[in-house]
């Protein structure tokens, strides 16, 4: 009897990785915290993931919006919850950026278990459709001539869409803080409206909220912040192609994080599930329609998060948001 039991035990340990589902996880609904408000790009990504992962997990995934404090509010609630795999976080670039630029941030960039990258969300540098600039070069010349009077919209000075513009200005040899005036708006819709209404001169924000207006001709896309050209905008060059070194590294992304010290069986289950999501029809279609590129399983997330943290930390020191060491 004893022998049978120990044989079973050995067998169980041997197959633990592959047969993660046998451990019983998950036996109830999983909560996916989206650290931004409903309706935004991150919310859509979260809900798409919840829908796509549900059949592979065998349990529903409940999406909860916990906005506030640059995403730190939601992130903190996940980090502080039990590391049992029933609370996970839809991480965005803000999870690496906020601690890199704001000393008051409550969660460090590496306070998580990195489950996987999810998607890359390109950003677009755009001006109004009837603006006289057709290239980044022309826009930059106008900014230089205006002596700081030209304005751009962003979610905040130290938000990702603020850095997109500031990195470009810095690359062009201008002072990122004073060469153009920042006008803060909240949310992709409000940012797009500000440019459409002519209340600001340009912006460089998430592609999802701008693409429809670029397609209708109300806006002109001058440059994309992405590793490669966007399939929907094949004629628009990337920042890297135009040799803007810092701007070329700025882009948006989503990832899946969990609290630190996640049990091995939970980790194995998620690797398994995400592997299936990576090729899942629903997930890929939904990502395409949002204007983002699925990156599930293609990026070493912890290395990438660190790289991003160091990039923004360096930029923040260079731009004067943080005291240089």
């Amino acid at each position, binding site marked *: 009897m004893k022998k049978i039991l120990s044989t079973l035990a050995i067998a169980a340990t041997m197959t633990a990785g592959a047969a993660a589902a046998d451990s019983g996880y998950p036996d109830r609904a999983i909560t996916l915290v989206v650290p931004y408000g409903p309706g935004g790009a991150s919310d859509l990504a979260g809900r798409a993931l919840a829908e796509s992962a549900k059949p592979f997990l065998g349990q529903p995934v409940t999406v909860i919006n916990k906005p506030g404090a640059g995403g730190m509010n939601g992130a903190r609630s996940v980090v502080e919850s039990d590391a049992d795999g029933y609370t996970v976080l839809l991480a965005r670039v803000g999870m690496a950026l906020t601690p890199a630029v704001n000393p008051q941030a409550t969660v460090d960039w590496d306070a998580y278990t990195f489950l996987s990258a999810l998607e890359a969300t390109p950003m677009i540098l755009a001006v109004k459709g009837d603006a006289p600039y057709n290239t980044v070069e022309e826009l930059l010349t106008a900014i230089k001539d205006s002596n700081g009077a030209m304005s751009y919209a962003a979610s*905040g000075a130290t938000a990702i869409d603020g850095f997109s513009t500031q990195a470009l200005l810095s690359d062009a040899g201008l002072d990122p803080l004073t060469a153009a005036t920042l006008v803060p708006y909240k949310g992709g*819709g409000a940012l797009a409206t500000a440019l459409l209404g002519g209340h600001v001169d340009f912006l460089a924000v998430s592609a999802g909220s701008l*693409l429809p207006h670029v397609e209708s001709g109300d806006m002109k896309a001058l440059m994309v912040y992405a590793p490669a050209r966007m399939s929907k905008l094949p004629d628009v060059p990337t920042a890297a192609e135009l040799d803007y070194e810092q701007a070329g590294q700025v882009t948006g992304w989503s990832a899946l994080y969990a609290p630190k010290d996640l049990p091995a069986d939970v980790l194995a289950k998620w690797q398994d599930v995400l592997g299936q999501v990576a090729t899942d029809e629903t997930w890929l279609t939904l990502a395409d329609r949002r204007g983002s590129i699925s990156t599930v399983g293609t990026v070493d997330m912890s290395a990438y998060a660190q790289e991003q943290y160091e990039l923004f930390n360096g930029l923040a020191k260079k731009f004067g948001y943080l005291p240089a060491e």
Partner: protein
Amino acid sequence: MLTEILSAFQAVATWQNLLIMTAGIWGGVIVGAIPGMTGTMAVTLALPFTFYMAPVPSILLLVALYKGSTYGGSVSAILIKTPGTASAACTALDGYPLAQQGKAGKALNMALYSSVTGDFISNLSLIFLAAPLAILALRVGPPEYFMLMLFALSTVAGVSGNSLLLGVVSASLGLLLATAGEDLYGSFRFAFTDDMQAGLSVAPVLIGLFALPELIKLIVFRAANRDVAAKLGDQQVTRAEFMGSLKSILRGSGIGVIMGAIPGIGPSAAAFFSYGEAQRSSKNGENFGKGELEGIAASESANNGACGATMIPLLALGVPGDVITGVMLGAFMIQGLTPGPLLFQTNIHEVYMLFIGMLMSSVLLFGAGKMTMRMFSYVSHIPQTLLTPVVLLLCLFGIYSISSSMFDVTILLIMGVVGFLMFLMNIPAAPFLIAFILGPMIEENLRRALAISRGDPMVLLSSPITWIFAVLIVFVVGLTIRREISKSKTRKA
């Protein structure tokens, strides 16, 4: 064009679509009526279902939920002084006193009639005036927003009760509280704890301030249990009463349409604006806040009037005006449709289907309202000593479920105590709330305007729209102060 409309009608009027819309309206009314559960919640919950539906039915489902919940918010506002959504806050001011007088049915009926009228007018404006309204909406920049919101804040004078002065004090408290949390440049204000970095959400503040003081009052003072038997025939809105409020309903719908069409304003501000206007111009102005049907009419026509109109910037420009239309934009994109000028060229069939569906849902809203009213009316028969604790219970669950946060629940309870203390000091709660909701819009747009003008305050008077509102503000403030002085003279005499 006519054949297109006919074919669109045929495509919409299937029993599946009607079923989806009816379910949406009913679901919305019920969710809106539960304290703490909001329309935003209903719409975001339904979003994943639309992944598997055809484009038009999925948008119609979301619109139906939005409309239903906006009306549903008035049900709990009237019956238990717990506005399900912020846009029903003014409805509670007159609806709850009416319910206490045993006229809950009358108040609910008035809320329904004005909601449906506002909704219908709003849909018509969406269909016929979308393009010009959208162009107007785009011209509204930070200086115009600032002036408009400052004018809406003048509603405070109308909801201050006995003392304008204390009303303004209350509004200042609200403005101050609204500044807590992350500001628009990203710095944290009044972040005493980590939770405070995110600031205070509207729902716990709203419900804590309105609903909980009723419970504390009952516990502390134990006023004789009111057992007003509903008088027969007093549950219907008479023709004369409806006609008497018609002006406010029509004006409220108009205000709702215009405010709804401007991105970023939404139904709450529209309802406050309309309530303030009705109170100023009505011959029953003095009775507002004490159970005036016209107050309900003004507030409800405007918030439902704004509902359909928030679709104007969404459909005509492709920009969402508030959180709910933001979710709808997501739904459109998931469906592979892109709202905006191109939609009217490439998908005119779907656009017509949407319009027809929205008109149909006005009718469905009327039916659902009438049918649920019976069910809800029983609430007013429950003894207060049991009802208010149940309201507390519902609020605890509702508020927790919004973002799974015990911090929100703590805020709810603290605001309940604060609301009770304000009641003791004779400081009215409604101005606090209005200021709390409008405050961030006022401040953010002021700071944006000054950033764009590089610090020149004249930017606030840089366009005709701002002039008009500046004149209106001066006029209304002058009028209010004059009225107050004459009131205090008669008091002293």
